[in-house]
């Protein structure tokens, strides 16, 4: 069996974020890394693969044939990768992204797709279910636990007030939350091995997809700032100030 882990490569989030003043898009320059959220999806895929003797492929859509983040997933243990890059994908919305990813998934012949619930820098949070809908597979979203056996995938899915147990026969798409597993650190051997693992580079033309985008950013403004109040150091009687504050706003 083949499992696909979807991976987004994003600018290092430790660096400050900015919007390009002309395009009003996030500036995606500088060093790219695997989105931290996706390391959970890669780990979850590897755990299933290890149990079922299956193989994990990474699928990523990225500018400029970027592979740095994908190599991290390969170093963790994924066997191969597909990276789709195309100048026409600059400014792709979630639906176009999902079309690209779904088309790449089809090429792998995978029966299970694992993704993060949302990316760290964009957080639309719809791509996994869009990929599922495009493939015509059930979408088991927001999993805090995932298990696969005998062709059935079972998850614990987060809900507004707790969780539910959901299952489906494969093929299926699962999105996993951060905290669902503990991502492994790539070993030295893994990092060296990743350099020789196959990474297929594709364009939109290879996938037969037109770069259609249905939305556009029309403006950006500063939000009304919330003014900072009073900050003081605890001298052993901070509780009195807090109680007085709560009395002032009639909570006490």
């Amino acid at each position, binding site marked *: 069996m083949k499992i696909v882990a979807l991976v987004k490569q994003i600018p290092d989030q430790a660096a400050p974020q900015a919007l390009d003043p002309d395009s009003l898009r996030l500036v995606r320059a500088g060093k790219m890394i695997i989105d931290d959220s996706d390391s959970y999806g890669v780990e979850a895929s590897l755990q299933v693969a290890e149990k079922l003797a299956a193989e994990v492929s990474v699928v990523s859509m990225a500018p400029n044939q970027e592979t740095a983040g994908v190599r991290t997933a390969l170093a963790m243990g994924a066997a191969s990768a597909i990276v789709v890059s195309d100048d026409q994908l600059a400014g792709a919305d*979630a*639906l176009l992204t999902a079309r690209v990813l779904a088309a790449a998934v089809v090429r792998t012949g995978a029966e299970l797709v694992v993704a993060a619930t949302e990316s760290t820098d964009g*957080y*639309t*949070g*719809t791509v996994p*279910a*869009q990929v*599922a*809908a*495009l493939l*015509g597979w*059930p*979408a088991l*979203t927001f999993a*805090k636990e995932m298990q696969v056996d005998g062709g059935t995938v079972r998850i614990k*899915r*987060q*809900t*507004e*007030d*707790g*969780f*539910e*147990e*959901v*299952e*489906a026969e494969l093929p*299926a798409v699962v999105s996993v*939350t*951060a*905290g669902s597993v503990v991502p492994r650190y790539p070993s030295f051997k893994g990092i060296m091995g990743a350099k020789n693992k196959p990474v297929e580079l594709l364009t939109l033309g290879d996938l037969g997809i037109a770069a259609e*985008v*249905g*939305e556009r*950013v*029309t*403006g*950006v*403004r*500063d*939000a009304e700032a*919330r003014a*900072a*109040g*009073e*900050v*003081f*150091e*605890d001298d052993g009687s*901070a*509780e009195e*100030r*807090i*109680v007085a*504050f*709560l009395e002032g*706003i009639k*909570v*006490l």
Partner: protein
Amino acid sequence: MAGSVWIICETQGESLAPLALELAAAARRIGGPVVAVGCGGAFSRAAAELGAHGVATLVEVGGCEGHLQGGLIAAAVVEAISQLGTPVAILAGQTYTGRDALAHLSVLLSAPVLGSAVNVSVDGDTVVAENVIFGGERVVSSAVEAGKVALIGVRAKSFSPDPVAEPISPAVVTVTASPDAPAYRSRVVSSRSEEHAGPKLDEAAVVVAGGRGLGAQENYAAVEELSGLLGGAPGASRAIVDAGWVPYAYQVGQTGKTVKPDVYIAIGISGATQHMVGMKGSKAIIAINKDPEAPIFRIADLGVVGDAQKILPRLIEAIKRRR
């Protein structure tokens, strides 16, 4: 704007989720008539309540029981559109089921999703949604290309319920998703609530939230005690949810609950942008953090630089003494 606006309504136990009425208010900013779509008996029984908030038609989705609702509702909406015509916009909550429904609709209707909206408006013949980025510092407006249905995920508490002067008695239409909808292949085997007893996190007047600065799971008990004393609900940062200290239902922030209590007390929480989007609408904010540079102090009305493990017990004692 001419054309109907549809809202996807979720239920909580026997009642409508509060977000449903917020969506009805948002929908009326775009146009009308408003059509509400939902699953199950609790939704059907809310017809009068929805009518009082301007909903003209209820679309009851049949056969939801036992399956994930988002995909099924989306497939049913496509059936309903063939009977009622295409809406200009479909709004859902920025919730789990809401996001699933919008994602499926996006594929079925070939339309984009504008997520995390905190405001909606109409500009000529396009629908515009606003969302906040960088932890609420900047507001981005996005428009849907003309001719596409605007699919909008609305953040909780972005709109206030707004009853209409003359309640409507809604018409009711029942639809069922096409039998080949993939969502039928998902099976919901069981569901469990992990909510805290007492007021709900997103409805409580007081929220006391703890973060990694509490140091250890057992120190969360003091957060619960304080919230209990104040008649509030305990909340948490994602760091301690991921660490397994408290259930996910406690999480406040971008991927958790949005709260707007009278007072939010953040204890040992740094104030990451993803946390702040979920609580910066609180009327008052108190922060306790040992780092004077912690970002949370930038939005706190009262900031205490100090050790939470020392201050919390004293605060609990001080409040008990007042009784």
